[in-house]
């Protein structure tokens, strides 16, 4: 086996050193009756070239990757500068462990610190952690944190929050005394309604903006409504590119911002690994889940970075920890950091503007087709819901036959919206692709 340095002969010598005759004796503390005693029924070893061939054969069956696509809904196709994937493949980054020994992990710690800073700058918040698994679990942790902070149990969440995020948060929050109340959306504007559900038992109001339908919510008004009953205001963002253009949740009064950072240079990779964002205000820092990296000095006054405030975490607090999270998304947070720094201030603004412009163009073109309209009137960023003349699944199937993945039928997640589909347009969609989609719908 080429990954095992010691040859069989060397291993025999080592067995002799430890006083054993053969490898079986290494396992004599395992009772015979629980030993397998037969070879595993998995493949015989493949050569490197055979592994590549087997993987390429499977990958080739993912024909969606060869077609222009207008899918979004929490995972977005954006261009990632070449340096991002190149730099994260440095051995020192991808083959290192969690930085528990800061003297030989300053590279990792410094990028975590930069990641935390950039997340704060883009969300308009005061502190951010070193990452969560993804946007959905970050939102689940926000529920739990809001319940800890307010000592209340009720969560009011908008149905226009990503349906899979709501499912995950419900799974996480099913065992306490929680009450999760889902509030609806206005059929004309696509924005959240039903704020009368807020009361003095509410721990948090949770909304997404741009929401699942692409609509930009009026966050300031929602923040005021949450704060009026003493609840925290939690804002979910699935499209991190929107931070380059839209008013920050922090400026609008968010107490916790959670989101998905996949758009920052990370491949879609069938839904993961991506990177969860978690940011809040300084006064709540000790209630946060996950790792935090902070500044520290050595005895000579040299600046360095360490994991800090770990008394919140499971390895110290065990069952009283703020979360069970241990491994997070380190390397993906690095990719996001390199993306944000490479794009820089101007690039993050320009890419956001291109997304908005291209989506606006597509929206106008599609709305001009006979029988088609946009389903909601609110301003949108790079996604919008189209209402077609017949069931969306049929429409999308017919454009798929023309070689285009036209979007997502809302009926996957929402009843009563059979003719609606969600279209996402990013900087990677050329005008030619948009025009082809429009022609395909016509």
């Amino acid at each position: 086996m080429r990954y095992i340095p010691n040859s069989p002969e060397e291993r025999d010598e080592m067995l002799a050193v430890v006083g054993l005759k053969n490898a079986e004796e290494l396992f004599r503390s395992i009772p015979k009756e629980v030993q397998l005693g037969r070879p595993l029924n998995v493949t015989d070893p493949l050569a490197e070239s055979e592994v590549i061939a087997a993987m390429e054969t499977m990958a080739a069956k993912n024909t969606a990757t060869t077609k222009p696509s207008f899918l979004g809904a929490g995972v977005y196709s954006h261009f990632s500068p070449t340096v991002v994937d190149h730099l994260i493949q440095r051995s020192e980054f991808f083959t290192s462990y969690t930085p528990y020994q800061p003297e030989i992990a300053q590279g990792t710690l410094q990028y975590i610190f930069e990641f935390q800073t950039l997340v704060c700058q883009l969300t308009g918040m005061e502190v951010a952690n070193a990452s969560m698994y993804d946007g959905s679990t970050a939102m689940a942790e926000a529920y739990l944190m809001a319940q800890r902070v307010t000592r209340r149990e009720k969560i009011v969440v908008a149905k226009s929050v990503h349906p899979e995020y709501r499912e995950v948060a419900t799974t996480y929050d099913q065992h306490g005394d929680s009450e999760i109340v889902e509030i609806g959306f206005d059929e004309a504007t696509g924005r959240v309604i039903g704020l009368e559900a807020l009361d003095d038992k509410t721990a948090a109001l949770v909304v997404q903006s741009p929401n699942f339908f692409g609509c930009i919510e009026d966050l300031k008004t929602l923040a005021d409504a949450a704060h009026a009953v003493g609840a925290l205001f939690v804002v979910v963002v699935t499209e991190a590119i929107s931070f380059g253009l839209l008013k920050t949740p922090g400026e609008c009064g968010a107490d916790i911002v959670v989101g998905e950072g996949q758009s920052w240079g990370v491949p879609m990779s069938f839904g993961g690994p991506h990177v969860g964002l978690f940011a809040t205000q300084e006064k709540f820092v000790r209630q946060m889940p996950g790792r935090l990296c902070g500044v520290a000095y050595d005895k000579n006054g040299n600046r360095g970075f360490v994991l800090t405030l770990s008394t919140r975490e499971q390895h110290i607090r065990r069952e009283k920890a703020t979360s069970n999270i241990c491994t997070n998304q380190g390397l993906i947070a690095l990719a996001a950091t390199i993306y944000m720094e490479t794009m820089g201030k101007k690039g993050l603004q320009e890419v956001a503007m291109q997304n908005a412009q291209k989506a606006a163009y597509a929206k106008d073109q599609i709305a001009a087709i006979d029988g088609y309209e946009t389903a909601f009137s609110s301003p949108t960023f790079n996604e919008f819901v189209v209402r077609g003349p017949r069931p969306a699944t049929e429409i999308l199937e017919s454009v798929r036959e023309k070689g285009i993945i036209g979007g997502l039928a809302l009926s996957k997640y929402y009843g009563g919206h059979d003719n609606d589909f969600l279209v996402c347009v990013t900087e990677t969609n050329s005008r030619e692709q948009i025009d082809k989609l429009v022609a395909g719908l016509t």
Partner: protein
Amino acid sequence: MSITKVTQHPTQNESLIFERSQTGRVGYRLPKLDVPETLDVIPTEFRRSDDLAGVPEVSEVDVVRHFTRISTWNYSIDLGMYPLGSCTMKYNSRLNEKVARIGGFAGLHPLAPEAESQGALELIYKLQEDLAEITGLPGVSLQPAAGAQGEMTGVMLIRAFLDQRDGEASKDRRVILIPDSAHGTNPASAAMSGFTVKTIHSTAEGLTDMNHLRELCNEGGVAGLMLTNPNTVGIFERNIREICDTIHAAGGLVYMDGANMNALVGIARPGDMGVDVIHLNLHKTFSTPHGGGGPGCGPCLCSAELAPFLPTPRIEKSGETYRLNYDIPTSIGRVKAFFGNFGMMVRALSYIYTHGSDGLKEATEAAVLNARYISHKLADTYDEPYQSDCMHEAIFSHKHQAKKGVVTLDIAKRLIDYGFHPMTVYFPLVVEGAMLIEPTESVGRADLDAFIEAMIDIDREAQDDPELVINAPHSTRIGRLDEATAARKPVLRWREDMESTAKAA
């Protein structure tokens, strides 16, 4: 073989990127906008007006130098032995990186039509089958993103099963038993799933105390046990059958933490031991890179009895077609959006393909042999708290060195000067001054001998010149950091006045 201690690395100091930023520098170029511009595309009231204050402006060259320089401050597996106990820092092959980046995988949207993502569904299905064979447990979900989430999923399965079996009476069964040597994630995951935790003692031999286990079972209310096997002191729980029988007789179920599966693959299967549910860490046993703290992947595997409660969606195969089944009313629900950390699954299947049946077993044997070799060679120098055969990791304490005032942390830091990453320190908590050493199969004899020699040298230094060890490391660009002060007034992000704030603390 003699070893030359590392000396100060000549890397230039590298500021934070924010301190390097210069107005007007750019690191990107986008294609020209190819659609007619819409005026006021976003109404002003919804647009940010701070011009992204503080976000850096740097060139591409700045970025490459910045990250390359700071990378040299890290230790890594590719540089040398990374003997962190319970972390399984084995070789991360480049092949696995390559196949995960094939366009048909990396570029696939999770909501693409099923008919157009058959290859990804096939890969998940095949990995599920292989992991089921390796663990002897037929129910599989690859959705959990990391070990802790796999654990939580496992504990939730237990809860859902009991709720269905016992109905209302299930609420009187809310105790999870956890050994005092367990990972901190175990009790945290149990608490998140609404259980209370009772701690089981270990024996002087380093095994689960059977009498205490029975006593706790007799107290009633036991929903289950969370057990690591081999346990966190590196010893196989030889009474595992009896442990499982005891829990089952008390009406509970057994969850096994699979963190230490690198000692068992191809040798013994949790399913054959009586375990009901387990999680695996693909980022340990199946070599997907740890990436400086993730991403992981924490598959949850279970018995047929528990399978109806696994997270949705499940992948099913009919003929040559794979489909997603979302309609499983008994399921605990989703634990993560989409299908989990798919990119890690590609790497893990590539690992299994490369090893094959024989290679997987060979890796296990080599890993256990390497640990046994260290245990044997250091037994005269360092205190071994347990006399049993170690499996894939060896445990020592600082007992002998502490007499000279040199403790585990000092020994760990001094190892850095010898060119090694420290072992896991102060874990498990049941051993005072624990040093948990897991070499994995990815270390050759020469490196093992160098490590052993370094440990023996450090002991000699502890006896002759303890200050040298206590003040280590001496070769890194930064010394031991004052973590207590850092936690008192934490500075968690860059600001222009950050230095003064941090120093004021």
